[in-house]
């Protein structure tokens, strides 16, 4: 098997690994299963990053998305799941329109992007070490301000998340579903 065939095989299997579970993520009735279907999608995206030779972002994707965000989502699902019966309908009345609009939009975008005459790649990316070194130099050099702004945003977001999610004062009793405020 030639390298090119191998590359095509890797790309198409990773694309299937990303897209098929993604469909289950948005359609499965059992939300915990939907959360677990995110796992192959996120791993598949990490694999596509590896195919794109963005070596640094493969472990970053696995650590941040699979290690942090997915665990956060599963925790939130398990903390709130008692009210969502898996046998209950999990979608609102928009399904038809949403499927039409998203399907048409994705098809048109994909068609236009696929037909566009993109310039063929002239250069090859650097190796993993040179890439990481260049990214690090860019982050403390030219893009230091953006980097600092991102870290401030992240810090502020996490502090706000803790404040919002903190237990309410004891006099505020949780209201049962359906009752309005007096």
């Amino acid at each position, binding site marked *: 098997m030639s390298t090119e065939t191998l590359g095509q095989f890797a790309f198409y299997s990773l694309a299937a690994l990303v897209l098929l579970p993604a469909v289950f*993520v948005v359609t499965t009735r059992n939300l915990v299963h939907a959360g677990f279907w995110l796992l192959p999608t996120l791993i598949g995206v990490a694999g596509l*990053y590896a195919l794109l030779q963005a070596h640094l*972002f493969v472990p*970053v994707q696995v650590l941040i998305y699979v290690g942090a965000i997915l665990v956060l989502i599963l925790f939130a699902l398990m903390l*709130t799941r008692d009210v969502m019966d898996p046998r209950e309908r999990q979608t609102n009345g928009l399904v038809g329109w949403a499927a039409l609009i998203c399907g048409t939009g994705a098809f048109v975008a994909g068609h236009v992007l696929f037909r566009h005459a*993109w310039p063929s790649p002239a250069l090859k990316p650097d190796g993993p070490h040179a890439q990481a070194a260049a990214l690090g130099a860019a982050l403390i050099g030219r893009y230091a301000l953006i*980097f600092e702004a991102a870290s401030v945003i992240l810090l502020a977001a996490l502090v706000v998340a803790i404040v919002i999610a903190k237990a309410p004062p004891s006099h505020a009793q949780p209201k049962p579903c359906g009752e309005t405020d007096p």
Partner: protein
Amino acid sequence: MIGLPHYLVVSAALLGIGVFGALTRRNAIAMLMGVELMLNAANLNFLAFWRFLSPKAMEPQVFVLIGFTIAAAEAAIGLAVVLNVYREYGTVNLDKIAELKG
């Protein structure tokens, strides 16, 4: 030969699936899962353009790094809000949280 268009098609499909999930889910957390899919599609697009159009430039990688940061912040704040809503209303069903509806 796998080129830029193939990645862009995968990314467009992933974005479409994410938008569908965000629009149709009744559970707030499931809606956030759709948003995560959309953010993944955006990052995939950035890296595909980086790889095939300007592999020596560092801007796309910086963008993707910022994108990861934004995704983490969005997940943290979104889930904190959802937990608080659950505590207040006893549900995360977006159809039932309609106090501001006129």
